[in-house]
Structure formats: structure tokens, C-alpha cells
């Protein structure tokens, strides 16, 4: 977890998700499943046993009819940096099966290394980590659509959103062949960002000023989930609605409107 030495500045990939644009249509969820060989069962209605790297939460402003308002919130892995790469999960994994990559800011998950103690799941306040309670089974013939870029996981290991890391590797290789040192912003996009019909999800290098995210994240209406815990996430959310911004973290009655500290 040491900072990368060398000429090119370390990347810090992240997202900005506009919650006022998000319609909760579910494209990101399914795009993610399709891209990452996420398995499925006959009954997926028990959401506590349903692997969805990208999950859309739905919550309301708590008002009654007809003042009620609802917000959809897409929740990928937040790729916490914590303090110096000590994200909640990385610091607890006993077998170094999940790691914080200082070059990209991406929290990795090594499925063949994980032995399924699930400590990382307990440590994640975003519930972004999922356990393979079952053997993954694809109905006869359907395994044909599995992508070779992402290995299917075996029963008994934890998995989670990787910011489509395999796409980063492909983009890097491509850039290398074309003799470029840096990869273009649109050369590496996550499946969810690419699929989102309303372009509510913007993905890029938060450290790179030419990338949209580096500006978007500085909007006055931008916030992160549970900032107060010090998870130091790389997924930013934007909403013009105050009640939505407030829902992003926990506050005592006296504490809102938020004091800037």
C-alpha cells in the first residue's frame, strides 16, 4: 500500500453519480451482471443472498402522500481509500485476498486466494461485498455467454465490484500497442457507466484534471456516503435535493444543515 514512485502520477479512479438523473431503471445492475459473469439463481428475491455488485437502493423523504419523494441510489463498491489505503475491508482480510492498489485506487479481490471468512463483509458499511453461498450454476448452454475477461467465482468466496478492472488492463494493453503512455478517458469506462441511458454515472481518474469526474466531484451538491466514518470513498453522489444529501450520512438532530469541518 505504498504510494507509487515514478514519473506518472498515481491514478485514482472514481465515479460521480447524479442521483437527480438516475431513474433507477436497472441498466447499470444488469450491465454489471453481464460484464462480470455474475451468477443467478431461480429465486433472486432474497436480496440478502443475491449477488449484485451494483445494487440500486430506493429510499423516500419520509413524507406522506402526495408530498412523498423517492430517490434511487446506485451503489457499487465505493473503493474506499480509508487512511493511506487502509480501507475497511483491506485492513481486515487475514489472507491478503483483497488489496488496495495505490496505482489505480482500486480495491481488488483475489477469488482464488479468498478462503471465505467473510470478515471483509462484516467490515463494509455499504454492504458492497457478496458471498457465494451457492455453487454458480448456468442453465445448460447459457455458460456460452460467459466473458473470458472475468473468471467465474467458485462457491465459498467473497466477490464485489472491481470497477471493471479487466477493462483497465485491456485499455492499458491497447494504449501500449499504440505507443501511448496514458490511456484516454473513454478508453476505460466501467460497464455500468457505459450502459447508463441517462449518463447519470460518470467514471474517470479523479486525479486527472482533464477527466470529467475531477470537476464534477467538486460541485457544491456533491457528497459521499458515510464520509464521517473516514472510509474516504471514491464514489461521489450529486443531488440538488437536500434530503437526499442528508441521507448520504448520519447526523444528530442538531447537526443539519451540515457544518463544513
Amino acid at each position, binding site marked *: 500500500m505504498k504510494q507509487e514512485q515514478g514519473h506518472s502520477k498515481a491514478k485514482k479512479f472514481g465515479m460521480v453519480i447524479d442521483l437527480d438523473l438516475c431513474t433507477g431503471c436497472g*441498466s447499470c445492475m444488469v450491465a454489471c451482471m453481464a460484464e462480470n459473469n455474475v451468477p443467478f439463481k431461480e429465486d433472486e428475491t432474497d436480496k440478502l443472498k443475491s449477488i449484485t455488485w451494483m445494487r440500486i437502493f*430506493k429510499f423516500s423523504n419520509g413524507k406522506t402522500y402526495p408530498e412523498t419523494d423517492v430517490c434511487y441510489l446506485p451503489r457499487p463498491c465505493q473503493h474506499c481509500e480509508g487512511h493511506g489505503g487502509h480501507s475497511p475491508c483491506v485492513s481486515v482480510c487475514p489472507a491478503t485476498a483483497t488489496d488496495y492498489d495505490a496505482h489505480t485506487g482500486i480495491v481488488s479481490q483475489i477469488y482464488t486466494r479468498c478462503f471465505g471468512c467473510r470478515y471483509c463483509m462484516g467490515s463494509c458499511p455499504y454492504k458492497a461485498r457478496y458471498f457465494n453461498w451457492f455453487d454458480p450454476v448456468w442453465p445448460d448452454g447459457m455458460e456460452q455467454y460467459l466473458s473470458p475477461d472475468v473468471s467465474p467465482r467458485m462457491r465459498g468466496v467473497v466477490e464485489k465490484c472491481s470497477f471493471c478492472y479487466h477493462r483497465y488492463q485491456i485499455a492499458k494493453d491497447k494504449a501500449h500497442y499504440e505507443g501511448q503512455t496514458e490511456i484516454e478517458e473513454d478508453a476505460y469506462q466501467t460497464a455500468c457507466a457505459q450502459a447508463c441511458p441517462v449518463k447519470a454515472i460518470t467514471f474517470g481518474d479523479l486525479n486527472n484534471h482533464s477527466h470529467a469526474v475531477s470537476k464534477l466531484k467538486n460541485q457544491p451538491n456533491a457528497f459521499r456516503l458515510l464520509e464521517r466514518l473516514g472510509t474516504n470513498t471514491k464514489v461521489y453522489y450529486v443531488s440538488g435535493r437536500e434530503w437526499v444529501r442528508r441521507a448520504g450520512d448520519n447526523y444528530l438532530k442538531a447537526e443539519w444543515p451540515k457544518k463544513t469541518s
Partner: protein
Amino acid sequence: MKIDRRSFLALGVGVVAGNALSPVPAILTDDIAIWTQNWPWVPVPEIGGSAYADTTCQLCPGGCGISVRKVEERGVKIEGKKDHPVNNGGICALGLSGLQLLYGPTRVKTPLKRAGKRGEGKWIKISWDQAISEVAGKLNDLRSQEKAHTVAGISGSSSGTMTEIFRRFLTAYGSANFFHTPSIQDTYRLVFEFMHGKKADPGFDIENADFILSFGSSLLEGWGPPVRMLKASKKWKDTATKIIQIEPRLSRTALKAERWIPVTPGTEAVLALSLCHVIIKEGLYNKDFLANSTFGFEDYKAKNGEIKKGFKQLVMDDYSPEAASKITGLDPAAIILLAREFAKASAPLAIFGKGQGILPGSLSEAMAIHALNALCGSINRKGGIFALDVLENKELSEVALDGIAEAGLKQHKLVETPHNSSGCLNQAFSAILKGNSVNALLVLEANPLYTLSDSKSVKDAFDRIPFIASFSSFMDETAQYADMILPNHIYLERIEDVPLSMGFPKTVIGLSKPVFKPQYSTKHAGDTILLISKELGGSIADSFPWKNYEACLQHVLSDKMDVLKKKGFWTATDSFPDFKNAFRTASAKFEFQTDSLSSDLVNVKIEGDETYPLVLIPYETIRLSTGYIANPPFLTKAVEDTILKGKDSFIEINPKTAQASGFSEADMVLLQTPKGQARVRVHLEEGIMPGIIALPRGLGHTAYDNYIADKGINVNQLIGPVNDPVSGLDTAWGIRAKLSKA
């Protein structure tokens, strides 16, 4: 030495100790761990060269451009096609799941002939030759018995060469009983027929309108081309376009709208006319347009000489905000405010039609809302509604008929309406139940057994049809209940033109191309029909001179084919004549159809009486596929657990209403309507009008695969059709209902 117990033990201990000290345990431990990392039952996707192939999605009428990522011959991902007029890179959750349909267990892999009882699911595999000759034989017999007219056909779509070939086949064969899965498009076509005097489809320029008044259209839940609408919603936010959503339920559209106005469902037309009232009263209407290009605004003399009340007088008399307020439950002030906002907007646009547009809806309501557009001149202009000429391929409509065909076409049709009746599918089945005989039914890419309301009667009607053949690629409800299945290629395996669904402001045709070679022993339905016609011979065969469907397509779309093949889509250069020449009515002007706007017509009734205190409305969510295509596993996985849990559907109900009857979250209740009953769970939702309960479309399948079958309730079991007095199309936007403890 003699082996006594002691030395034996010693030996044992020695062996154990020896092994323990040797590297064997270490190596075994390592190997076992490596084995867990390569479990033989966890698939390892083959690597290979990756490439993209473009085509057009056909999972809904949206016609999005898609790029399929392939690794060698395997499809591994479907993505949105960049720079496509409809979706420009975006894609919906259903489109993304397409490969699960291609490779899924719900495919019909070869022609099947029913073995057991209908719907029992017992089939015998047969060859294509046998399938085709058997169907042809059946049709030949009927023809020779002069029962040609007792053969009916149902197509999933109302346009496109496949539909036209299908209709052409039936005509040449001698039956006028051709139907298509009804939709709001049918109603709109009548609106234009009446008010514009021309055959047209509606195009809504929602990207350029600055004030959109949606009368319950779920614009962001799969209405029109879904992805186009979702993209538009971003534009609305960027350009601060005002969306006003009028519906009793806080849908996604209502969420993204600038204002959500819940009104008593069924009274939307009254509201529309009352808005007209205010606009006229305050003189906010487009005077030039009304003065020069409309007929029936002022009182007028009918052909028989009597003076008839004009639109102006009608709304002034009957639709004052006060009067409307009583019916719609909306505060008069709100109505007046809304009317002013609408009229003063630079490009206002009113959109008729509840939900995705699966329901044709009331013609009067449609005309009332269209009149609202007319008042503000939002017709055929930027940000308004366009009357797009209906795409028709003349080559396929004129048919040479032999004697039997002519005789058959003269026969009494299943459904007789003054207008094109091919959308009155419900009536066709009720006609069958009334005794009109249908001896053979051919179904193409449609699933009436699931998608039509009052599914029970539809099934009863099916039982009266001796022979049903389906061309479905999937084991859908209708196919499962058929006598023979002649499986079509699925959209990723076939070439076909895809005329863009209703609502797009331009006439666009997409081309779907075979991205994969057929996975199973299926046949392009076009070719199947051609082969059957050849088998039948005579004038029928002559009507299909092409060697196969592709040749036919090439011939019919010859002028567009090159563009289609190159770009994947073709865009018409629609031109809109000025209002002098835009209308083909008797008056050559836009005509207000006042007699269709009387108060008894515009208030759209539903089935049921006071013994049913509540009103059940179906609703659509973009995470549930509502049409002929059922949810693929991925899409079902994305469905919220407040809609489906285990096998139980949830109804949305306002906490107040639930409290009144003592129901709390997740309670199992018995939902009863005049048409049927079902056990459902309660989901308390503030975002729904008290007294209303909502049930989603797209669940309750009994066919397809285990990933969707027997999950939840099909709302069509609970709702019956209510036919529009003029068009005869289904207007049942809901039904009265009651809840009791289950």
C-alpha cells in the same frame, strides 16, 4: 519376527509419524487448495479473438441499435450502439439480457408437435418438412371445405414486412381475420383518421418541447423507445423542460417530473377539456391556427342541416374548472394555473395514453387531449406532435386472389367495426366464445394468452380452436398451448426490418441482422410462411414469388436496403406541409370531433360496482418486460423485493387505505375483482392515491423457464376488456376491486 499387538501398533505409529515428517502432507494440502481453485464444475470461459457486430434490438418495439461483443462465435455481451438515432450508446436492462434469451432454456429448439393434452407440455420433435406439410395440409383441407375465412392470424406487431407478409398470406389464402397485438398506436391512428383525415402515426418531439403534459404515460418506464425517453429525461433536466405527470401513482416518470398531479383515473379527458375551457376563456389559444385551419371550433351546420355545437361552446358549457374539479378531484385553481402554464409555454405538448401504451385506450380521451395540442397549435411543429405517414409497402398489400380467396374474404369477419379492426383482438376472442368458428389460428411473435386482459376467457376461446400453430422462438404461454410450434430464429439470428415504434418524431427503420448463426433447428418465420404458401400452391404460391424472405425483403425495401445494410438504420426525410395542405378531412382542415367529446364518452368507465370499494390499476416498471418477451433471469434479478418476493406479487397501496382495512406491510391478502381473484402481498407506498391499488404487469407467467414461471400474478387475470364505443378497442385502464384477509 512375530507380529504381536505391540509391534503392530509401533508399526502404525511409525508409518503415521513417517508420513507426518515427510513432505507428503504439505504437498497434499497444496494440491487440495489448487483443486478448489479449479473446481471442474465451475465453467472456464474460452478465450479468443473479440469483435463487435451491430444489429437492431427487437425485444421491445423500441428498435435500439445494439453492438454485440463476440469472442470467436460466442456472444458475451450486448451493448448500446453509439451514434444511433434512438439510443446513441445507451441500453436498457432488457436489451442487456438478450444473450440469456439466445442461449436460454426457454428457446424452442426444433419444430414441435403436441403429444399430450393442450398445455400439458408433452411434445414430439418433428422435422421441418413434416411441420410445414402438416400445417399446409390442415390449411388446404379448410380451404377445400370453403372454410378459408375460419382461419385467423395474430401478429405481435402492426407494421414491418413480416407482419405484411403474414397478412398477405392470409389474404391470398382467403381470410380477413388478421389481428395484431393491440396498442395505443391503434387509437392514435384513429385520432389522425378523424381529426386529420389521414393515415398517420404519432411522433412526439419531446426533446424540443418545453412543457410536457403527460396524461399518465409512463414515459420513463418503457414508453415508445425506452432508451430514447430516458436520454430525453437528461435533456429535460439540462434544458429545464417542465414535465407534468398526471397519474394516481408516483411512477418513475412522476418522480422525474417537475410536478406530479394525481387525478382520479379515468377522468383525464375531463381535465384536458377543462384545460381547453380555461385556454379558450382566457383567449390563450393559437388564434391564427384555429381561425384558418380548423373546423368545428365554432358551431357549425352538419350535412343534414342541423346546427351543431362547436368545440368552443361544448367545453364552455360542460367543462368549467369547477365542474371538472368535482370529477377529477383536482382543485379548480390548480386546473386554471396548469392551463395557463400550458398555453403560455413556447412549445407545449400534451401526451395521451396510460402506461407504456400497451392499452389502446379511449378514443374520446385521445381526441380531447389531441384537441388540447391543437388549441396551442402544437401540431406538426418543433416540440409538438407530428402526424407521420404510416409506413406501408404497397408491393405487399395488393394480392392476386383466386375464387376461394375472394369467397372467403366476402365472409363475415370475426370483428366488424367501421374502422380497421385488426387491433380489436379481445373482441375476436369474445366472438369465438359467442360461437363464431375459427378452425385454425396462426400466431407470430405474439402471446395473447398472457398479454390480453381476461386471460381466462382467452384460454376458453383457445379451447374452441381445433388447430393452433405458433411461430414463437420461445416456449411462451401461447406456444405452450398450441398444437404445433414452428420456431422462428430469435432477433440475433435473423434478418428483418424493424420499423421504429410509435412516438419517435422521425420515420426510422432499423435492420436486424444475423449476428449468430442459428443455435438450433429453427427457421425464419418469413421463410416458413413462404414454404407453406408454396406447399399450398396456386395463387397463394404466386403471391410469394421470392426464393426466400431475404430476397423478399431485398425486393420490398430495395431503395432503402443499401443504407440499412451500411448504417443499420434508415431515416425518412419527413416533410410536413403547412396547415393548408396538412389535413385530408372533408373540410381539408383540422376537425374537432365534438360528438365524440360528450361527457358520457370522455369519462372512461371501468368494470365493477360499489361492492368493490377499491380500484385496481396495472402499472409498468422498466425492470419487468410486459410483452411477448418475458423477463430474462438478469432482469428478474433486478426486480425489487417490494414487487416480488419468493412467488408472491406485491400490490402498492397507500398506508391510509391499508390501515383502514387493517393491513400492514407484507401481509398476505385476497385481491378480488369482478374478473377473478388472487393472493398477493401488501406493500405500503405513500406514492399512490388512497383508494387505489396497483399491481405490476410482467409477472405471473406460467410458461417460459423456471427463472420467471410461476412468479407473482398476471394482472390480466383480474382485469377484463371494456370496448370503446367508437373504435371497439380496449379501454380498461383498471377494474374495481376489494381486499380481504387471506
